[in-house]
């Protein structure tokens, strides 16, 4: 079997890291970071999600290359959806003509 058994200790460490990150982001929300606050909060969320994906969901140990492709494709398509929709919303005022 190509399956990798992850030691329990790894899980505990990852969990500890997640808790730490959570406390950081909750704490930072009380501090005014101005423009950066959203960016920082999202960056921490992305790191947390990556920890979960890589360790809890075993992608780090995955022997199938396809799993990587599937995961990346999923987020890439989400990005396409958000990004291309926003091309419309963010440029609506540019021309200064209502409805264009």
């Amino acid at each position, binding site marked *: 079997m190509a399956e990798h058994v992850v030691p329990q200790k790894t899980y505990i460490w990852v969990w500890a890291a997640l808790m730490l990150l959570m406390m950081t982001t909750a704490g930072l929300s009380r501090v005014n970071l101005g423009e950066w606050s959203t960016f920082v909060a999202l960056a921490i969320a992305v790191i947390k999600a990556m920890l979960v994906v890589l360790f809890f969901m075993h992608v780090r140990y995955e022997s199938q290359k*396809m799993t990587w492709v599937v995961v990346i494709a999923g987020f890439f398509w989400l990005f*396409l959806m958000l990004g291309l929709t926003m091309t*419309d919303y963010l*440029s609506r005022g540019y021309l200064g003509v209502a409805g264009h």
Partner: protein
Amino acid sequence: MGTLTTPAVERENYLNADYGIKSWLLTTDHKRIALLYLISITAMFMVGGIAATLIRIELLTPAGDFMSSDTYNKMFSIHGIVMVFFFLVPSIPAVLGNFLIPMMVGAKDLAFPKINLASWYLYIMGAGLMLYVILTGGVDTGWTFYTPFSSTYSNTHVIAAVIAIFVAGFSSIFTGLNFIVTIHRMRAPGMTWSRLPLFCWSHYATAVIMVLGTPSVAIALTLVALERAFHIGIFDPRLGGDPLLFQHLFWFYSHPAVYIMILPSMGVVSEIVSTFSRKRVFGYSFVALASIAIAVLGFLVWAHHMFVAGISAYAALVFSILSYFVAVPSAIKVFNWTATMYKGSIWLSTPMLYAMGFIGLFTMGGMTGLFLACLGVDVHVHDTYFVIAHFHYIMVGGAVMGYMAGIHFWWPKISGRMYPEVWGKLAAGIIFVGFNLTFFPQFVLGYLGMPRRYHAYPPEFQVLNVMSSAGASILAVGYILPLIYMLWSLRYGEVASDNPWGATGLEWRTPSPPPTENFVETPVVTWEAYDYSTVPEVPVAR
């Protein structure tokens, strides 16, 4: 041709392996599920067809005198919803793809047979709910469900129709998921990606769209239902909501959905053109990669349905140029199919006639798509009959022609009988003529300015509309004929040999009809796809 005479005694196959209604309703055999799908989508095709007939009768005269405008609105909505979500999307994938993909890759079944059966049950639930909607008063939003009309103003069964589509969407996701995993994980030894039939490549691309696109329409329609039921006003302009957001989410699926309909047909045509030209497909890898390119680029173009909807002009520029990009791989395919016929040894059988019809009509559909991607022109022809004609050239001239081609081509494998060739050719001819007579006048109508979804229209458009309705009646004959002779052939058709066309695919190296487990021994592939230099004498596994 590598035919061994079929023994008079019926050997065991997937059809006679077991009898009784339970053996069908609880089957996990992908071939039986394919047949269940075949029967159910044919029924839904007839429902959609009846609606289309009534629409064309109404449009014979400029005045709305055959039915009321409400009835008419329900008719085109039913026609659109049923044909798109309950016929075209499942058509080739759920019938032919289901039947053939495991055989083509040399597997005993799809990766998840139970999920495959669940997919059919979901389809039946969705279709049943949709029929209930039709019988209890219908829905009048069009298949596009644009808000705020669908969420606030329509007085018809919008929620039920939306749930029906949601459920059918799940069935589509399950089918797509099964195909992706099967093609990745279930290939027989030696069946490398570069040996994969183009039918599998195009279904792989289709499955990617099903899996990545369908959830988007699911959430968009869920929000419409929530808005109707609980006044959750995410698209409600009175609360600062933007109805265009619905259109974005809707077309994020529904534009790629067009490729769900056309890509499988492209796969069918690749198989058929190669088989009946007795040649390897010209530029195999380009055709294969073009499928993937269409699936990916197809997701980047959706807002070309919204050029006049009030989106920003700059977004329109982006989506227009991306729309042209997606036309490139489609063009590559057409040129490669044509080149495949060059110096072939062409057998003009029924499937080949359909496939040639497909190439021609798809080219016209694709070319008129260039008009719609073109910003300045789209402003004029958007939401007119030009659009109707364009997408019927793609969906009927393309997808349905491909479906008919495929059904004829694999009928010997599915049923173990040959269809009557003369009738087949006749029907193919009638469909081609009827189709063009129905839809070509609509290009002109559209450019003249006749809007779509019009119950009554100005009298100067009548001549072209009468032509279109006349063509539709010819087209109807063309569709009824195969239904009759296919049923006839089940009993009286000539018994088919294992490989009546002398084709190279793995599915032709197993008996017709195939045994339940497809192959007695797992095949080991040692040859390239479409290697017609070594056929026709193919070894037949027993």
